[in-house]
């Protein structure tokens, strides 16, 4: 069964450092997403991406965050200057259907745990 793969599985970084989390979505999927889960809190939507541009983003997704699909296979989330509160599990997801078309089923990766010290 096709999978969404994420790397690294765990990253520890110092506050203020840049972090890039990588994702390889399912190959025929066209819509890509990042969610995150701070320890003890709900899974939260960050951003959705289609046709090489952001289609929707949440209030969390401020100027410190960016996404891109540099080579047609990877989908990356960059945090420019990490803060302690960025410590969380970050989930990448992809879907084949457009958002808003009824049952838009997302396939999630296993997550990347980011720890900011």
């Amino acid at each position, binding site marked *: 069964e096709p999978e969404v793969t994420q790397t690294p599985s765990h990253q520890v970084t110092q506050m203020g450092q840049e972090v890039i989390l990588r994702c390889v979505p399912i190959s025929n999927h066209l819509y890509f997403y990042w969610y995150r889960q701070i320890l003890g809190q709900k899974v939260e939507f960050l951003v*959705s991406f289609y046709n090489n541009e952001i289609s929707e983003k949440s209030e969390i997704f401020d100027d410190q965050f960016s996404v891109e699909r540099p080579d047609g296979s990877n989908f990356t989330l960059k945090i420019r200057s990490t803060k302690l509160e960025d410590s969380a599990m970050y989930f990448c997801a992809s879907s084949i259907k457009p958002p808003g078309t009824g049952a838009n089923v997302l396939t999630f990766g296993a997550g990347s745990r980011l720890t900011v010290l």
Partner: protein
Amino acid sequence: AQSVTQLDSHVSVSEGTPVLLRCNYSSSYSPSLFWYVQHPNKGLQLLLKYTSAATLVKGINGFEAEFKKSETSFHLTKPSAHMSDAAEYFCVVSDSSGGYNKLIFGAGTRLAVHP
């Protein structure tokens, strides 16, 4: 705004006994609802989905859920728990209010299964 409330943060059952994980939703229109499961060190896996077709939805691994509009509920059940069912379960509603939909997650219910 869409939201989901999972009524139990932890549920513990014995192997072979029924499982009930409760979820209530809030939606201004007919929602799409999902249950996802997360096993340790694994991704969020779709168990089942409701999309305004049959109100009783069957999913993988023997799970099912019933959409009850009058009660705004979408509880997840399984007749007989297996040790491998131990995981975290998320009730999720799809929010299409912004034109593009995003998933709104409940807080999760951790299911423990004892021998």
